[in-house]
């Protein structure tokens, strides 16, 4: 059994390059909003966005505002917390804070767009889909991710992607967001230790 992946401490990481700056994030999200609008059929309006806590939830809020700006009906905005659905809860990691799962309307028959910041192994999305299944039976679930860094461990594919980045196992992608008190930025870092 391979040990669970643990995010390396910041001190062990060295900056490789910037993937997106603040303007880049804004531009990318605007394009993603338009693609989401294209991907969700007319009969499934208003669009139902559901962010994966915590990064994905902030991005879902931004996408919701962008969709409204683009003339869409105000999207439904929910958030899922996957802490209780992780497949590594008891594998030696400190337990994450548990946030609330908030869904503004029942999921039954809806087309739900899951939003996450970084798509990596696919395990987070697997857990998020399990959360949704416990709340109802959506007609369809779509996936939008700001960054797809590859290296999937489960058969999960995004429908809408901001930026696709080739990464190695030693690298890590960090999405910094103003909502967390940081300057908007996406960077690729590598473990030095």
């Amino acid at each position: 059994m391979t040990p669970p992946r643990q995010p390396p401490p910041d001190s062990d990481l060295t900056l490789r390059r910037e993937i997106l700056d603040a303007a880049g994030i804004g531009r990318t999200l605007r394009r993603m909003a338009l693609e989401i609008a294209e991907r969700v059929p007319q009969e499934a309006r208003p669009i139902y966005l559901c962010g994966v806590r915590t990064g994905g939830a902030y991005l879902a809020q931004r996408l919701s505002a962008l969709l409204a700006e683009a003339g869409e009906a105000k999207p439904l905005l929910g958030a899922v917390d996957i802490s209780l659905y992780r497949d590594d809860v008891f594998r030696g990691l400190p337990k994450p804070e548990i946030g609330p799962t908030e869904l503004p309307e029942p999921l039954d028959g809806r087309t739900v767009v899951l939003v996450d910041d970084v798509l990596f192994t696919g395990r987070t999305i697997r857990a998020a889909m399990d959360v949704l299944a416990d709340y109802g039976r959506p007609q369809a679930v779509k996936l939008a991710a700001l960054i797809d860094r590859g290296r999937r461990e489960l058969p999960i594919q995004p429908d809408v992607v901001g930026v696709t980045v080739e990464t190695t196992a030693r690298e890590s992608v960090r999405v910094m967001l103003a909502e967390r008190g940081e300057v908007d930025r996406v960077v690729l870092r590598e473990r030095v230790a």
Partner: protein
Amino acid sequence: MTGFAHRHLLGMEALTGAEITQLLDLGERFLEIAERPIKKVPTLRGKTVINLFLEASTRTRTSFEIAAKRLSADAVNISGSSSSTVKGETLLDTARNLDAMAPDVVVVRHAQAGAAEMLAARLRAGVVNAGDGAHEHPTQALLDCSTIRAHKKRLEGLEVVICGDIRHSRVARSDLWALTKLGARVRIAAPRTLLAPGLEAMGPPGSVTIHERIEPALEGADVVMMLRIQKERIGGALFPNTREYSRYFGLNPRRLALAKPDAIVMHPGPINRGIEIDPTVADGPRAVILDQVSRGVAIRMAVLYLLAGGDAGPSE
């Protein structure tokens, strides 16, 4: 990140105010699961929780069982009458046998104070004290604090009355530890025969006061917690009869009017209607007794989540 420095939950005495607050915060997160269409999360899949209840209990045992099941753990219940203790096996032998079946958590209720602690020292499983004699009942204190905090938005500086059979009450002891650690002041009201020694010393100086009549304790109180008169524990004549007790210590609307207008009324159950609490109060708008029960499940989910299967640090 949620780290909890204890392998067992034996009492409130050993916890810090910060640790109690951590448990209360985590309990809030689990409340919402009871509102879902599917009231279950997969978190403790494959974990085993044994409820070893060697003393009568419906509410607490059911609450722990539901908490375990909502987290997808396998819950096994053993009650006094169905266990080998009636065949003469000691508690420790029973528990060692259960431990050999590799449960992750053993929830134990026993008539002897210290029973849970004794098991915790000898078992591999995490141990939760669900009531040991007149010693402690930590999850009850947690659900009481959770209920008070939800209604009053704070615990610090609140005036909390605990009235009734303090002497035989593990609930009162756990509540005293927890409430004073969280900054509340506790007014104990009971006939002298139902008091226990050393209560004032359980909180910081001045935080615990003793009253031999209920009225002065009630004046300006934020929370009124009535305890059950434990008929099964009262062997001798500690008070003349339940009618007289009710006349002097029962909570009725007239007495409740002495407390703050927004005071809440609590009771750990089961209620002796008409003895320690008047039915119009127990069913009235100030009573939060059923809210206590709902929060009990969430708090116990939080406790099982923290104790089942280790916390921070590699388990191997």
